[in-house]
């Protein structure tokens, strides 16, 4: 065994031990976050125990509830990978929400324009359009960053608002369903533009997109030259630049790929869940994706685990809205508290 291989093996077992330990740590942090959120609920005169029981019985305790978790995991995993890809070279993509909306917008254009094509061609086209839309939207920020004109953090944030307004413009304006009376929505997609679902559930083909995205991300990172160069840029930008890695090209490309993946989330939501374009397309999946990627520190398996957790919380928000009359955005408090405890843990635990 060569020395480098031995080192790699040692590092791997270290990661395994670290993973168990970090899992335990994460459990502790999660319990702390739940405790703090329980106090917030108590202060507002709600019963936290009942809230948690409601969330649990509505999500994990029934087959249908569990399938809905999978449904929510699809856009969450995709938007998390959309953040994790550019994050490999320390780019901060907070624009998943906008990229998701533009992806949905492009896919909707495909669905409304080429509705007469056979389903598999139409869906492939919508997939590519969604990827292209989200990718181009993120690449704007990538170009601004690569040229040294503007930080991608703030430009992706600002473009979120522009993207949502753009969708509103089309939905209230040129694409408004003439039969929808006053509802802001496009007309219903033809059946060929709907992603196939699994049995009687709402779980759809997007789950495959999401899992493939996570696996491709892991594979490219670990096994390809691109992954190596990305790690080089992420490790030491100056050294990478001097060894001839085209950093500016990577900045734009990784933003494009990340945005494209968020665009696929938009495409699959609009096609499988909504069946038409509406402004209420996403309850903040893009922002939640950022959180997930941050909590998972960009690790592929961590992304799946954290997506599951946030899917339960997101679904929990809908449940609390019904059973406790709380505004749906209340769960963003829980998300924030989780992030607070993850960020605020002692420096030595990092």
């Amino acid at each position, binding site marked *: 065994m060569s020395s480098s291989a031995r080192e790699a093996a040692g590092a791997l077992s270290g990661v395994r031990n670290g993973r168990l330990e970090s899992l335990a740590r994460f459990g502790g942090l999660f319990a702390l976050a739940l405790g703090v959120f329980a106090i*917030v609920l108590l202060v*507002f005169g709600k019963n936290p125990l009942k809230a948690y029981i409601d969330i649990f019985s509505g999500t994990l305790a029934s087959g249908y509830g569990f399938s809905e978790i999978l449904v929510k995991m699809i856009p969450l995993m995709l938007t998390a990978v959309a953040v994790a890809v550019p994050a490999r070279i320390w780019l*901060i993509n*907070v624009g998943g929400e906008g990229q998701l909306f533009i992806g949905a917008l492009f896919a909707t254009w495909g669905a409304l324009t080429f509705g007469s094509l056979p389903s598999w061609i139409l869906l492939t086209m919508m997939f590519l359009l969604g990827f292209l839309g989200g990718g181009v939207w993120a690449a704007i920020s990538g170009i*601004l960053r690569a*040229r*040294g*004109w*503007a*930080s991608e*953090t*703030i*430009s992706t*944030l*600002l*473009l*979120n*608002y*522009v993207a949502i*307004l*753009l969708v*509103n*413009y089309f939905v*209230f*304006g040129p694409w408004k369903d003439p039969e929808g009376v006053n509802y802001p929505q496009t007309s219903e997609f033809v059946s060929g533009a709907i992603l196939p679902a699994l049995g009687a559930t709402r779980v759809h083909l997007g789950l495959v997109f999401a899992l493939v995205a996570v696996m491709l991300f892991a594979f490219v990172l670990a096994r390809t030259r691109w992954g190596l160069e990305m790690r080089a840029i992420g490790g030491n930008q100056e050294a990478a630049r001097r060894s001839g890695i085209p950093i500016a090209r990577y900045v734009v490309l990784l933003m494009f790929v990340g945005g494209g993946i968020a665009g696929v989330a938009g495409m699959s939501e609009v096609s499988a869940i909504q069946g038409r374009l509406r402004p209420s397309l996403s309850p903040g999946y893009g*922002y939640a994706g*950022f*959180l997930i990627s*941050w909590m998972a520190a960009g690790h592929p398996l961590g992304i799946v685990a954290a997506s599951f957790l946030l899917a339960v919380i997101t679904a929990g928000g809908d449940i609390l809205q019904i059973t406790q009359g*709380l*505004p749906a*955005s*209340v*769960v*963003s*408090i*829980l*998300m*924030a*508290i989780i*992030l*607070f405890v993850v*960020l*605020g*843990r*002692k*420096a030595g635990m990092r």
Partner: protein
Amino acid sequence: MIGFLRGLLAGSIHAGTPLLYATLGELISERAGIVNLGLEGVMLMGAVVGFVTAVLTGSAALGVVAAALAGGCFNMVFAFLVITRRANQLASGLALMFCGVGLSALLGAPYIGSQVQGLNELAPPILNYDALVYLAVPLALLVWWVLFSTRWGLILRAVGENPTAAFAAGKNPHALQYQALFIAGLLGGVAGAHLSLGIAKTWAEWMTAGRGFVAVALVIFSKWDPLRALAGALLFGGAISLQLQMQARGVPISPFLLDMLPYLLSLAVLAVWGGARRHAAPASLGRVFQGTE
């Protein structure tokens, strides 16, 4: 045309006021070396606490005071994370934003649809502005004076440029950063209160609609100078007001497209100013002072 321009100017000043308060707050914290993307959440907390206080007590002035305090205290959560716990500033800021979105929705839910008198308009009656509008320009001057002509301002800027050197000179960078973030929170809270009590006179979930992020862009535009921030806030207020004026006059452009103006303007301004003038930024902006051990 005269009427249009007059309406545009009046509207710019009105819409620019909360942006100016928020921008001045962010500017102070960035001068101390800390970027706070949670300003959006701070503004929301200010907006909701100000509104609820005004509904309950009937006094808009009390609402503004409560909003400022709420903003200041809320920002301390962020301060603890980034200063004491040395957490990443961008992620902590976004977490604060999430928290503000949710907490303000929870606090404000029973008051949706409530009416308040709002801030009174002061004399002279030509332009009908409230007191916060009149206080905005003197405040910018005050911040400028404090930052550039007082001892505290000098030390604060030193912390933003090089906290280690400030520490070596016998100053406490962490204490100054806490102070800066508290003041930034106060101003962010007032900015939110002006939105809910001065402009909208009502509460709606996520009513800041990204103005906190626009303010962060405005700080870059202003090259971290409070006096330039005045011009910036007026310009962005103008972008918001132009949309209202055109809509009021029935100009056949979709309001959604016009609503994009402030965001697109922010981007354009960032692209033009951000790259070329980066050297104007405090040298240690966004870095965490690790102590000297």
